[in-house]
C-alpha cells in the first residue's frame, strides 16, 4: 500500500515538474515586456507627480503665472519663492522668478490646487539628477520654462510667431497709449522714433517681430 502511495506521489510530482516546464516554455515564446531604458522610455501616466513646473500657455508661449503668491501661502513646507514684475502692455503681473526648493518639497500638490490661473502643474520629469545641491535646493522654474518655450517655438513656428507678434502689438499699444500725453513735455529727439515705429507694428500684427526696446522711454 505504501509502495503504491510512493509511486503515485512520484508520478504526480514528476507530472507537476512537466507542468512547470510547460509554463516557462509558454512564457518564453511570448514577446519581451521590458523597456530598454536609456534607449526607450515609458510615457509617464497622466497623474504622475514630478516636481511642479510652470505651464507653458500654448497661445502666448509664456507662463500664465500672475505671481499672486497663493501657491507660496499654500505651501506647507515653505519651499516656493515667487517674484513678479509688471510688464508694459500687460494687465496683470507676470512671473520673473519662481524658485522651488525641491529638497524640502513633499509633492503634496497644495500649490497646484491653490493656483487660480492653472499656471503650475506636475512635470513628467523623472530624470532628475545633478552633482550640485543648488540644482535642487534652488530649482529655477522660470529658466526651465524658457528652455521649454524655446523647444516649443522651434516645433510650432507659426504659433510662436503669432504669439510673439501679439505680445509685441500689445506692448506697442501700451507704449503708444502713455506716450501720447508724454509727447508735450518730452524732448522731440527722444520721442520721435517711438511713435513712428509703434503704429506700424500695431497696425500690422503679422509684421516681423521688433525688439521691445521702445518702452524704456
Amino acid at each position, binding site marked *: 500500500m505504501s509502495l503504491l502511495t*510512493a509511486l503515485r506521489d*512520484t508520478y504526480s510530482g*514528476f507530472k507537476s*515538474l512537466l507542468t*512547470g*516546464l510547460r*509554463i*516557462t*516554455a509558454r*512564457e*518564453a515564446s*511570448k*514577446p*519581451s*515586456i*521590458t523597456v*530598454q531604458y536609456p534607449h526607450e522610455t515609458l510615457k509617464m501616466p497622466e497623474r504622475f507627480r514630478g516636481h511642479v513646473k510652470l505651464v507653458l500657455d500654448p497661445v502666448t508661449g509664456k507662463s500664465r503665472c500672475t505671481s499672486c503668491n497663493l501657491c507660496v501661502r499654500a505651501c506647507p513646507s515653505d519651499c516656493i519663492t515667487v517674484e513678479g514684475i509688471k510688464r508694459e502692455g500687460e494687465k496683470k503681473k507676470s512671473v520673473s522668478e519662481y524658485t522651488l526648493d525641491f529638497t524640502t518639497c513633499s509633492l503634496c500638490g497644495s500649490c497646484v490646487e491653490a493656483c487660480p490661473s492653472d499656471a503650475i502643474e506636475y512635470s513628467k520629469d523623472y530624470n532628475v539628477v545633478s552633482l550640485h545641491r543648488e540644482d535642487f535646493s534652488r530649482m529655477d522654474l522660470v529658466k526651465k520654462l524658457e528652455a521649454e518655450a524655446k523647444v516649443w517655438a522651434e516645433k510650432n513656428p507659426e504659433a510662436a510667431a503669432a504669439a510673439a507678434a501679439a505680445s509685441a502689438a500689445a506692448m506697442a499699444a501700451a507704449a503708444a497709449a502713455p506716450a501720447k500725453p508724454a509727447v508735450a513735455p518730452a524732448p522731440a529727439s527722444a520721442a520721435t522714433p517711438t511713435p513712428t515705429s509703434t503704429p506700424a507694428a500695431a497696425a500690422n500684427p503679422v509684421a516681423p517681430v521688433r525688439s521691445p526696446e521702445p518702452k524704456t522711454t
Partner: protein
Amino acid sequence: MSFLQIEPVRILLYLVGICAFVGANAAYLVLAERKGAGRIQRRPGPNEAGFGGILQPVADGIKLLAKQVMVPPGTDALLFRAAPLMVMAPPLMCLAMIPFSDSIVARHLNVGLLFVFSFGSINVMALMLGGWASRNKFAIISSARVVSQNVAYEIPMLLVVITLLMVTGTMDLNEIIHQQGGGIWHWNLFKVWVNPLMPVTFVIFFICMLAETNRAPFDMAEAESELVAGAFTEYGGMGFGVFFMAEYANIVVGCSLATVLFLGGWQSPIGVLSGGLWGAGWFLLKLYGLIFTVIWIRWTFPRTQFYSLLNLSWKILIPISLFTLLLTGAMMKLPVVYHQFF
C-alpha cells in the same frame, strides 16, 4: 590521412580542438544561459555589448582576466590554486573519449565509458579541495554538501549505466552508438522491448547528471542565497572564471554522454543522412538540445532543500534504478532460463 595518425600531431590536434571547443562552449553557454533566463522571464537578456549581446562573453572574459587572483591569508595556497585546475581537467579528459562523429574522436578506447566515469568523479574532489583550502566556513559547508550530494547521485547514475551496459554489452562509446543506428526507434531511449522502463532510465540519468554537475535545482555547491557563493566564495578573477567554465564544460560532457548512451550519438533519427559531417551535425543538434533543456530546467525550478535532494536520491531514484536493473536482468535472462528447462 597518415599525417593525422602521427601520435604527437594527434595529441596536439586534440589539445587545441578540445580546449577551443570547451572554451567557446563555456563562453557562449554563459551567454545562452543568460539569454535563456531572459527569454523565460520575458526580457531580452544582455544585449548591449556587440550586436544583440554577442560580445558579452568577451567583455566578461576581459573583466575576469583583469581582476587580481587573491589567495587569502591562512589558506593552503597550493591546494587553493590547484583546485580550479583539478576541476577543469576532468571534462577536458572526458571529451577525448566522446565520439563527435564516426571518425571524429580524439582517442578511441574500448573502455571509454569507464574512463569518462572515473575521470568525472574527480570533479567532486576538486570542489571539495577548493572549499576546504579556502579556510572559509561557507566554503566548507558547501564542500560537505557537494560531497554528500555527489555520493548520493553517483549511485543511481552508475546503476542506470550498469543497466545500459547490460543492454549494450560494451563500454566502447562508438560501438554503443553503432548499435543504435537505423532510426529513432533503435535508440536506447526507446528500446522498450529490452526494458519497458528505458525512458524512465533516461530521466534518472538526466536528473543525476544535473545533480553531478551541480546545476540548478541541485546547485548546492553555489547556493548564493545561503552560502554566499558556496565553494567559490574566496575565489576571484580567473580562479572563479575557471570554476565557472568547468561547470559548463561538465554540462557539455554530461549532455554528450546522455546523447551517446540514450539518443543515438551521431546517428540520424530518420535513418538517412548519417555519415561523416552529417553525423557531427546530428550529434551537436542533440547535444545542444539537451543543454537547452538543462538551461530551461534551471530557470523553471527553484533550488531544492538539501534533505529533499538527498531524499530524492535515496528514496526514489535508487529504488527505481535498482528495479530497472533487476527488470532488465530478468528480461534478458528469463528466456534463456526458460529454454534451458522447457
